[in-house]
């Protein structure tokens, strides 16, 4: 037993010194390998946590949004629709909302402007999202202008939304209902939509059906549908990134496969010498196995760590260009760090496994052939 352990120690020792003997080659290898793991891990961590983040935010949104349709188009909804709905079983609150999108040609971005009734704001006050504040360079007390109805309206920044859920609130602008009606011309008593809260998620569909029976000109939009849309959008974006990554993965496979047939003459000679002086094929395989493990494990850990820092502490700066199209005011949000065992296992399987196999095969071939070639 003690001999077995000592033997492994000798093998690892020899492996390390072998790695150091070919410093240049091995560091190059380690670098490329780490880079690939870094890219794969970044995408996995990023998309996964983004999805999670969006899910958390949507959890807080209403279960049903009621829109009114006129000639098949989204129209304003009168406040008395709330009374017309009557009592709906399972609905805990009904609220009419005023909100919309405003395009700012200067920064080429859409703002989401909302006029919540619970906020106490004067007609000239505004609360803006952190993304807007950062992009235009606004601070509390500065002036913010909105263009609407062929006119510009000026507001003083009263507050900046805190950064907790920046993903959604980044492009948000909050103003008073009165101001909203002034800049949009929406008359008193009219709203953009009505939101309903339903306590039991299993009743949501029933409520929606009842609603359509009572008021045939409304369209209920369910949160689960939005969630599904979000999901597919994220999956789609993830898809793009993944297509890019398949390229990287292919490069990796080629890189690993490239090693498969080719041992350098030098390496072959060394294997021959080791065999001739009394090493078993198994010892050589074990040594090379350790070599593969050391390289791929360090690359894996370095790459994963770098990806972790990249995604959670630098807000995935490298992916900004890919995701920019989705919101111009790209949030500099901090994603909540997490580690997912299954994800690590997947990544592990796709990077370490093929590498070790690809390196072991040629060594196995070389180590089972007779070592007499080195005598010549």
């Amino acid at each position, binding site marked *: 037993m003690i*001999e077995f352990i000592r033997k492994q120690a000798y093998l690892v020792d020899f492996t390390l010194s072998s790695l150091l003997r070919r410093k240049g080659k091995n560091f190059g290898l380690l670098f490329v390998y780490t880079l690939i793991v870094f890219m794969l891990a970044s995408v996995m961590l990023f998309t996964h946590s983004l999805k999670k983040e969006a899910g958390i935010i949507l959890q807080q949104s209403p279960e049903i949004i009621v829109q009114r349709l006129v000639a098949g188009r989204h129209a304003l909804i009168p406040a008395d629709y709330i009374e017309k709905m009557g009592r709906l079983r399972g609905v805990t609150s009904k609220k009419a909302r005023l909100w919309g999108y405003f395009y700012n040609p200067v920064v080429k971005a859409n703002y989401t402007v909302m006029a919540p009734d619970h906020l106490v704001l004067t007609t000239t006050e505004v609360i803006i999202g952190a993304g807007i504040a950062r992009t235009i360079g606004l601070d509390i007390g500065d002036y913010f202008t909105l263009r609407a109805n062929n006119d510009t309206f000026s507001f003083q920044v009263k507050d900046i939304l805190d950064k907790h859920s920046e993903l959604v609130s980044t492009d948000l602008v909050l103003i008073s209902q009165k101001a909203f009606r002034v800049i949009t011309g929406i008359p008193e008593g009219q709203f953009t939509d009505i939101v309903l809260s339903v306590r039991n998620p299993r009743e949501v569909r029933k409520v929606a059906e009842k609603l359509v029976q009572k008021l045939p000109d409304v369209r209920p939009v369910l949160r689960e549908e939005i969630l599904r849309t979000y999901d597919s959008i994220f999956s789609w974006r993830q898809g793009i990134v993944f297509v890019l990554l398949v390229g990287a993965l292919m490069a990796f496979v080629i890189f690993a496969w490239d090693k498969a047939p080719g041992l350098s003459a030098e390496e072959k000679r060394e294997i021959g010498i080791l065999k001739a002086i009394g*090493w078993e094929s198994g010892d050589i395989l074990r040594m090379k196995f350790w070599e593969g493990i050391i390289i791929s494990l360090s690359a894996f850990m370095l790459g994963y760590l770098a990806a972790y820092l990249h995604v959670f502490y630098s807000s995935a700066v490298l992916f900004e260009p890919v995701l920019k199209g989705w919101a111009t005011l790209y949030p500099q949000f901090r994603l909540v760090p997490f580690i997912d065992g299954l994800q690590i296992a997947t990544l592990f399987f796709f990077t370490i496994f093929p590498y070790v196999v690809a390196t072991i095969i040629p060594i196995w071939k070389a180590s089972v052939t007779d070592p007499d070639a080195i005598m010549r």
Partner: protein
Amino acid sequence: MLITLTNINKLFNQGKHDEFHAIRDISLQIEAGKVTCLKGSSGSGKTTLLSMIGCLSRPTSGRVTLEDEILSGLPERFLTDIRRHTFGFIFQKFNLIQGLSVLENVMLPAYPLGLNHKELKSSAQKLISHFGLDRVLHNPVEWLSGGESQRVAICRALINDPRILIADEPTANLDSWLSQEFMGLIDELRQSGKTILITSHDPVVFDSPIVDRIVEMQDGQVVQN
């Protein structure tokens, strides 16, 4: 008899168009404690025969026995084990591992045995200092001269204390003075009870009084014994 070869044949590339019959039906016995020299022109099959005796390759047909044990036909695992404790090799091109120090090169054959590191190191050092290489102990082997390289190769061949020492053209890369010195070392090893097998076409070797027996080869056959 320490080693007995019976009707050994070796064919390279058997069954292919470039098939080559390198060893033809050789039977030979090698005594323990003696220095035996295989002599012959280039291409006569000396190296091929030596590598079959040393279990580095297998004969196509025939039998190699070590004392009473039949080696030809043993699976590779057992062969390695026997080779490790029975044969020490000194190659013509020395075949030291570049980048490793003298000490590491000498210790290398003992790694798979899992010996105590301190003991192994001290016995390697003793051997190295016996062959006058103290000064270069920690130098990488690529800094060594030809004579030094060969002494390192001898130390490496001896580290597992083998009974038989196999040297293929050991003086081919040495000048005549160093070759004489090498034969001196061989004499010393013979006196310590080792069996020694050398191939050479260097007169310094086969005309040396140390050599007990000369086996002459030609075209894969033994012509004079």
